[in-house]
């Protein structure tokens, strides 16, 4: 109990520390600022750079999409924010993550524990793996609050029922004592969302929240997430491999490739006028539901092996527009149009011509 009380008292003052950047005049107040973050995995003498010099600001109340293929570093980036990766093998090589006036990467384990769930919550991909199969769902939803002594056990069931009703579970008072295997994937994902919103976090990280679900259930879960976000003006980071999901739900998009953000802009701008050949390639390789079949323009080659760092652009070996300087110049994400960032040396040509 001693530890629990310590955690609870540590959590109290922090939850009121949300005055970061309050003096800014612009409407876009960053709630989370990632600066120059590099994360490596080291195992058996092999080093893989999963996140490579990523800088990113997330504004209060927005939905930011992070898209990329497997191995692009989007999940690692998300998990690093909450320091969920075990070290070893994961090492944060450089960088800072500022949230509510603190650098999350320099907090002690006890301090970061008080951020998790209370200020930043996470929704995981596979809902069935996110819950413990041997405990009732209701108990798991309120576990965070009970452990911190914020909720008496006698009130916990009532609280869990309320939260389940909030996320649209029918007759929650009857279902609160059921176990995860008795629920469908979509319902369990609702329970996981209930768990995430239980402590009214300022930021929710949703890592592929609908990937394991059928399309009609995905539709329900996205509608629920957007409704909750609007009602509580929470900031949401949505990680997805599905460009169409991001197009319909996010205000801004960061496209990741080989550990780097290669393009960052307002959603409509990325989809109508991509300024990086990888984003363009992705868009051209997706079959369209709303158009007759036409030949897909695929991106040739394979995603790169992240173990060998090269100074130049990681996409160069697969890029149709590659120039000699792409292979050895230092690549940085830079603003090529107001609010539109690209890591392509040739981005200006794309901006002007629409296409390279």
């Amino acid at each position: 109990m001693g530890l629990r009380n310590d955690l609870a008292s540590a959590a109290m003052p922090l939850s009121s520390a949300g005055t970061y950047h309050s003096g800014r005049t612009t409407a876009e107040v960053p709630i989370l600022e990632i600066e120059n973050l590099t994360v490596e995995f080291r195992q058996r003498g092999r080093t893989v750079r999963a996140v490579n010099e990523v800088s990113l600001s997330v504004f209060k109340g927005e939905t930011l999409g992070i898209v990329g293929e497997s191995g692009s570093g989007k999940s690692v980036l998300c998990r690093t924010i909450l320091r969920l990766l075990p070290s070893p093998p994961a090492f944060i090589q450089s960088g800072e993550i500022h949230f509510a006036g603190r650098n999350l990467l320099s907090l002690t384990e006890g301090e970061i524990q008080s951020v998790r769930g209370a200020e930043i919550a996470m929704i995981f991909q596979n809902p069935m793996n996110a819950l413990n199969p041997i405990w009732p769902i209701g108990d798991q939803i309120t576990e965070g609050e009970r452990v911190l002594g914020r909720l008496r056990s006698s009130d916990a069931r009532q609280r869990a029922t309320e939260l389940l009703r909030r996320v649209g579970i029918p007759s929650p008072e009857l279902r609160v004592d059921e176990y995860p295997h008795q629920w469908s994937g979509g319902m369990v994902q609702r329970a996981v969302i209930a768990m995430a919103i239980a402590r009214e976090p300022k930021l929710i990280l949703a890592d592929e929240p609908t990937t394991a679900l059928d399309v009609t259930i995905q539709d329900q879960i996205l509608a629920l997430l957007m409704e909750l976000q609007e009602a509580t003006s929470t900031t949401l980071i949505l990680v997805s491999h599905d460009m169409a999901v991001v197009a319909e739900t996010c205000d801004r998009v960061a496209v990741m490739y080989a550990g780097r953000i290669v393009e960052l802009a307002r959603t409509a701008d990325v989809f109508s006028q991509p300024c990086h050949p990888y984003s363009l390639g992705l868009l051209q390789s997706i079959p369209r539901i709303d158009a007759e079949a036409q030949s897909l323009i695929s991106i040739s080659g394979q995603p790169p092996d992240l173990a060998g760092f090269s100074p130049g652009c990681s996409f160069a070996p697969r890029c149709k527009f590659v120039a000699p300087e792409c292979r050895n110049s230092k690549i940085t994400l830079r603003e090529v149009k107001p609010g539109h960032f690209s890591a392509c040396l040739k981005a200006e040509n794309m901006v002007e011509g629409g296409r390279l």
Partner: protein
Amino acid sequence: MTSSPAPILSIRDIVIAFPRRRTIGDLLAGKQAVSARAVDGVSLDVFERETLGLVGESGSGKTTLGRTILGLYKPTAGDVLFEGRSVFDNTPDARKALCRSLQMVFQNPFSSLNPRMTVGQTIAEVLRFHGITEPGGIKAEIERLLGLVGLAPDIASRAPRALSGGQCQRVGLARAMSVRPTMLVLDEAVSALDVSIQAQVLNLLMDLRQSHGLTMIFIAHELSVVRHISHRVAVMYLGKVVETGTCAEIFNMPRHPYTQSLLAAVPRLGTAKRHRTAVLQGDIPSPYNIPAGCRFQTRCPKVQSICRSVVPPSQRISATQVADCHFTT
């Protein structure tokens, strides 16, 4: 694309039921054995050189139906005829002949290859078993097959763990093509792949279909992929085909409320951030407990009282489009 006179594959009122094992408790309580009707009375014809897309959500029975077409499940009722012969004829000669013409590509590219065999051994096994090439010509044939699916010849000496998902899926395809089949059943063959790799494999499939005159059944949950590759589409829900039609009919003029809802639920690239209201409420019902009347009545936005008691008849909309609904207008 349905102009050929006789179908190459004919599925006739097929029913596949999986009985649930009764526990001792169930036996003592005198409970009746229950079974899940994963596929419940499906009839479909597939014509030569066409690609039939089979779509549906998890639990709709599309994978079970796909496997049944290869004779991998024993049917509870009904029959599947491939080139006029039943696929459930289990004599060794009949099985072998069926495998020479009808092949399957599975969803998970890694688990469908033997991890202890190299790619070359995997393909050589098939070539030897069916006696397709002279023993001396096996190496050359493997190289030809790998080239066919866009892989370098040196892949033959590698184990599956040394390959990427896209490469493994190409090996699975090379293995299926090694018997020179006339028809392929592809069960979620591109679902596990990233979009840039998925596009490569889709383009490859369309090239192979063209060059080898293949007939295909393409099973997938992703509607955009199905639209891209199929000539005709069958939509499944809870063990039944609820609507069939040409690709254009299904995607432009869907007549069954389930098809309409399914299409409306798919996120689209062209749309901006929008206020969402979910198209369908609730989940697909359990196949152990199929609703009376229309199976979609528990979630249907257009449900009427007749739907709760009367099984909807198949309504012919056009020469090629059929929808099982009381209200198809």
